[in-house]
C-alpha cells in the first residue's frame, strides 16, 4: 500500500506493508541512519521524531505515518552537527550505534526544556541504551549542547 508522509520536510510516497514497522520501512527505503538494536521497544537506537516528538521506529507501524512529519538525523543536520561537536569535546563518541537516536532525543529535549539539568537529561535519555560509554560523557555533552556549546 502506498503511503504519503513528510520525511525530513519533503513529501514522499512510498510503498508500505500492512504490518511493517516504521524502522523496517525506512531502512528498506535506504534511510539507514535509523538503526535496529532489538526490534522490541527496549533499546532506543531506532528513535526518530514523529511530529517533533521522539518515538521508537520499531514500535510504530509505518501505516501510522500517513500525513505525519518524520524526522531523522539526515533532516536535522545543522542541529545534529552541534550535538556532535559537543560529543566530540566531551569524548562521548564510542561505537556510535546509539548516537543518531540519542541526537534526536536530545534535540527534542532541548525544544521541550531548554534548561534541562543533568538529572533531567538522564531521565529523558533513559530509553537509550548504550553499552559502550558508561553514559557520563554523554550527559556532559548533552549539557554542553543544551547550554549552547558551553559546559
Amino acid at each position, binding site marked *: 500500500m502506498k503511503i504519503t508522509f513528510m520525511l525530513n520536510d519533503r513529501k514522499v510516497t512510498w510503498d508500505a506493508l500492512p*504490518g511493517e*514497522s516504521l524502522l523496517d520501512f525506512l531502512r528498506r527505503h535506504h534511510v539507514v541512519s535509523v538503526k535496529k538494536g532489538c526490534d522490541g521497544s527496549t533499546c532506543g537506537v531506532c528513535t526518530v521524531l514523529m511530529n517533533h516528538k521522539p*518515538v521508537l521506529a520499531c514500535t510504530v507501524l509505518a501505516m*501510522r505515518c*500517513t500525513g505525519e512529519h518524520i524526522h531523522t538525523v539526515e533532516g536535522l543536520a545543522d542541529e545534529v552537527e552541534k550535538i556532535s561537536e559537543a560529543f566530540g569535546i566531551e569524548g562521548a563518541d564510542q561505537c556510535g550505534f546509539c548516537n543518531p537516536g540519542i541526537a534526536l*532525543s536530545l534535540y527534542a529535549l532541548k525544544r521541550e526544556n531548554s534548561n534541562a539539568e543533568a538529572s533531567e537529561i538522564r531521565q529523558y*535519555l*533513559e530509553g537509550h541504551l548504550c553499552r559502550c560509554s558508561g553514559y557520563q560523557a554523554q550527559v556532559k555533552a548533552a549539557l554542553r549542547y543544551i547550554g549552547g556549546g558551553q559546559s
Partner: protein
Amino acid sequence: MHVEAYHKVSTLEEAYELLQTHDSAVLLGGGAWIRTGSKPIEHLIDLKELGLNTITETDQSIIIGAMVSLRDMETHQGIKQLGGGFLSEALSQILGVAFRNTATIGGSVMGKYSFSDVLTPLLVLDVSLHFYHAKTMSLASFLSQRGRFRDILTAISIDKTPCKAMFKKVSNTTLDFSIVNVAVSLVKGRHKIAVGARPSIAVLAESVMRWLDTIEKPSEMILEEAGERVVADIKLGSNQRAKEAYRQQLVKTYVTRGLKEVHGL
C-alpha cells in the same frame, strides 16, 4: 509483525462493527504490546483517527481519551496535581520517553498486564472506564472480569478529589518490569492500598484498607502492622524475577512507608 488487513476507521461504529464481525480482529492502540506477539493478525483496526487522544478536565474529574499516550498523560498539568504527582511519577518509570510517546492508556488498561505500573496507581484513585458499548464501569470491576472483553475503551476518567498518594516501583533499572509495585492513597480519611506485579495482576488490599479506615489517627505501629497485614491478606508469589519471600519483604516495607508518607509521619 504480520498483518493481513489494516483498517483505518473514521467512526467508533465502524470500528465496533469490524470488531464484532471478525472474531480475530485486534484494536490498535499504540501497538507496542501487539507487536511483541508472534501470531499473524488478520484484521488490525486503527483507532488513531477517532479523536480519542485528548485530555479534558471538569470540576470533578480528568477525562483521558483511550488513545492518549502515556507521555502526554505523564506531562499533563492536571495529572501532575493528582496525589502530589504520584501518577505522573509512576508513568515516568515506564521505559523511555520515545516509548511513552507511542504506548497509549487504552492499551495499558485493556492489556491487563500483570506487571503494570499503570493499573496499580490507578487502583488507588477513583477511576471509571468508558466503553463504546458497555458504557461505564469502575476500574476495579473491569479488572475482576474474566474472559474476553470485546468492546472499545473510549476514555478513562479520574476523580479529582484531592488526596495524598505514593507509588513505588521496585526494579533493577527503570527500563525493567517491576519486581513488585505498591500504591497507597488517602482521600478524606479513607485508605487505598494496591499491590501489582505480585507477580500476578494488581489488586487492592481491601480488608486492610477497611481496617485502617476504622482507626482514627493511626500510629506508626499501626502502619507497620498494616504492612504485615497486607502481606498476609493478598497473594504474593515467585517467578524468575523474585521469590515470594523477597516480594513479602518489599510489600511490607513499602506499604508501611507509603502509609507513613500519606499520613505525614
